[in-house]
């Protein structure tokens, strides 16, 4: 399935772009997409609760399984941070 990831603020800067298209196995969750994208970055070990997940512009739990065509966004922790 194809999904589109939107990146903002420190996450956009960490990956050097505001948008990524991914082709993923069925059953992939929003949190798994985050882990995959940010592996090897300073955000790899970020406590999960500091990031909110939006799917199709609505807040959803990190474990939500994605569907073909979904737009996922990671809402970075506010207040302070690594940048």
């Amino acid at each position, binding site marked *: 399935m194809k999904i589109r990831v*939107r990146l*903002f*603020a*420190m996450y*956009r800067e960490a990956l050097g772009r505001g948008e990524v298209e991914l082709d993923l196995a069925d059953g992939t969750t929003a949190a798994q997409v985050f882990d995959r994208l940010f592996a090897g970055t300073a955000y790899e070990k970020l406590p999960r609760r500091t990031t909110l997940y*939006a799917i199709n*512009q*609505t*807040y959803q739990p990190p474990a939500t399984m994605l569907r073909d065509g979904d737009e996922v*966004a990671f*809402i*970075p922790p*506010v*207040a*302070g*941070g690594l*940048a």
Partner: protein
Amino acid sequence: MSAKTILEIVDAPIDAAAWTAKLADPAAGAIASFLGVVRDHARGKSVVAIRYEAYREMALTEMKKIADEAAKSWPLLGLAIIHRVGALEIGEASVLVIVTSAHRADAFEACRFAIDTLKTTVPIWKHERYADGSAWVDN
């Protein structure tokens, strides 16, 4: 109530008087407004430059939820939420909330609700640059 609603994310300076005029209503007796303004200091540091970035489509959706919830909770005549994005100067407004109602208690409470909720649910980020670094911070 069907309150007149204006929700905008803008790139240019916010003209509070112009937005207030758009909510003009002969039945309105009370207009409560909140302007968030770029300060010259934050967290003990001098701020030299500031920039806002929005997840625009989702921010507008969340602003709509705020407006709907406010209109359900108070007898409002109008509500405007305007957020600016891009680079701002010290003293410029980043966000404006205006609520009009027949009576002031409703206008105040809904205005406070709108800005407090906006700060926690609307995906807009603030980047502060200091003399010695920068940070993405709480909007």
